């Protein structure tokens, strides 16, 4: 089929008209929706729920006596946050987990420690650093520090999965969805989003629970082993412990200022 110049111009003109008309129709509809939205009250930050200037956590190791104490805490997080279990270390996703003293505080170990001490289990999660290297690294702002309470958050819809944050985090706190997590979640909690393939995730100090006035799930399950509160509030329990007892933080020499403190001596100290 041959098209001469006149025919071509005619057809092109008709198509353009159609396209422009179509876009007018669409913007018209969208405009109306926008109008409707603007009539409803604008978004306001919820006043209810727990608020703080700087959320922090104290891990009181004296309260974690048995394997059950630890497993209960981990399970509480895994079940409500739809953490998948792939059954292999490579694709593993974890928000809170345990490791032994020797590997958690690599700079503090010494060869004379008894095996018992070396193997003492410690709870590990995202440190919600004051200077988070992951946030600095993220090229899209998908991971960011909330200005009002210091929680380091993830936007699973903006993350491109470049894993620069995983390279940047000196604590190994971040996990990547190497595979589709959904088939590997034992029972899905419909109140919390499941993640998609190809995005990074980590502990968020249970922001969804804080909004409802609840403490993080792990804190609730720990029966006093994990103490959570506002570090900027001089009367808070965390502040009192951190300022008057001997606590340590992971890799504090790197200057990231972790917000998770470990009370090692427990009640016996100071």
């Amino acid at each position, binding site marked *: 089929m041959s098209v001469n110049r006149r025919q071509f111009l005619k057809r092109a003109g008709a198509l353009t008209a159609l396209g422009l008309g179509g876009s007018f129709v669409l913007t018209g509809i969208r405009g109306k929706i926008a109008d409707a939205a603007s009539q409803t009250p604008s978004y306001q930050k919820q006043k209810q729920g727990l608020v703080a200037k700087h959320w922090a956590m104290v891990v009181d190791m004296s309260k974690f006596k048995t394997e059950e104490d630890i497993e209960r805490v981990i399970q509480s997080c895994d079940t409500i946050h739809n953490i998948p279990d792939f059954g292999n*270390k*490579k*694709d*593993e*996703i974890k928000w809170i987990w345990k*490791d032994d003293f020797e*590997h*958690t505080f*690599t700079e503090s170990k010494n060869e004379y420690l008894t095996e018992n001490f070396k193997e003492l289990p410690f709870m590990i999660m995202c440190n919600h650093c004051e200077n988070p*290297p992951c*946030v*600095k*690294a*993220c*090229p*899209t*702002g*998908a991971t960011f520090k909330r200005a009002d309470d210091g929680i380091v958050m993830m936007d699973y819809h*903006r*993350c*491109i*999965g*470049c*894993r*620069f944050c*995983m*390279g*940047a*985090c*000196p*604590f*190994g706190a971040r*996990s*990547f*969805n*190497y*595979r*589709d997590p959904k088939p590997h979640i034992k029972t899905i909690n419909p109140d919390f989003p499941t993640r*998609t*393939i*190809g*995005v*990074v995730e980590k502990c968020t100090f249970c922001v969804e629970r804080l909004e409802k006035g609840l403490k993080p799930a792990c804190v609730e399950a720990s029966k006093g082993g994990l103490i959570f509160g506002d570090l900027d509030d001089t009367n808070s329990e965390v502040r009192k412990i951190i300022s008057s007892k001997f606590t340590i933080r992971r*890799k504090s020499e*790197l*200057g*990231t200022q972790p917000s998770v403190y470990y009370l090692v001596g427990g009640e016996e100290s100071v």
Partner: protein
Amino acid sequence: MFEKALTGSKRYWAWIFFLLAVIALGVMAYLRQFNEGLGLTGMSRDVSWGLYIAQFTFLVGVAASAVMLVTPYYLHDFKRFGKLVILGEFLAIAAVIMCILFIFVDVGQPMRILNVLLYPQLHSVMFYDMCVLAGYLVINLVVGWTTLGAEKKGTPPPKWVKPIIYLSIPWAFSIHTVTAFLYAGLPGRFFWMTAIMAARFLASAFAAGPALLILLALLVRKLSKFDPDPGIGAIQSLVKIIRYAMIANVFFYICEVFTAFYSNSPDEMAPFKYVFFGLDGHTSLVPFMWTAAVLAIVGIALLIFPTRENKVLLPIALLSIFLANWIDKGIVLIIAGFVPNSFERVTEYFPSGNEISIVVGIYAIGALIITVLYKIAISVREQNQI
């Protein structure tokens, strides 16, 4: 000019179709990865970057190395590089495109990759890396195409292209510096967090890139009527640059080893122990690292002595230097940055077959781009020679 790539000998077309077949296999492997996720690769929670990012890092260097021809030729009026310079620019184009593809196949959500530009984060080195890489691609496309077009017409290149050529010189340094900053600014990754990283990157790039370029030029000389160095000493001049760049590279590496081991800092020493001797019984990178070390020494030795003028030994020397740098940067550097992990445990990384198919596919795309661009350049030159 592009029409010149569409006519060629049987051998030319056979090579093109061979590359297309390899690319097709790579595309198929990528589709699998696109559907099933990066779990198909050897990467893990502990070693979260692998071959893809390593190739990206290495190829940024190859791209930047065009500056080793552009600077002498355009800035110092070093005429000997007159026939080589276009090959350097076209190699840079292919290398940058491969870099972009390696980033693309590495991200978990490729359809969102433009979020980097939609939500630019001025504190993220990756944002700057994307900007300088895209800019470098445009610069080399414009410069390469315009200068070759002018040559075809037998006229000097237009005046407006000169400032762009000068701009390409600092720009080439910037792409590899920014790439080094991706790694050198991460607290807790002791293998990467070193002030000399950018300098090391540039030195290794200015050895590996021109080494590849000479090998390609020798191939061009063999396969076509166009000789990029008809007895004017262009190749031997470039050999000198490669030699000193490689010596600087090895020197910088020794500086790193000295600092780590004389200070006796466990964090600094651990990755070096891992790559040279193995750590906690994990030794997968040891054979690679020693091969690279031997190749580096052999390559430098062959280029120091008059052996550099020997027709057989020169390609061997260049190949040694290229491979030494490729192993160091394209395999070891990235993987060993994750070893030991932040818990001082060793997780090893082994690329999967699917992952390797994708890597080979992208290299085939690069080879295809080089073939087509070089074919155009050669055809123009052959025409002008008659």
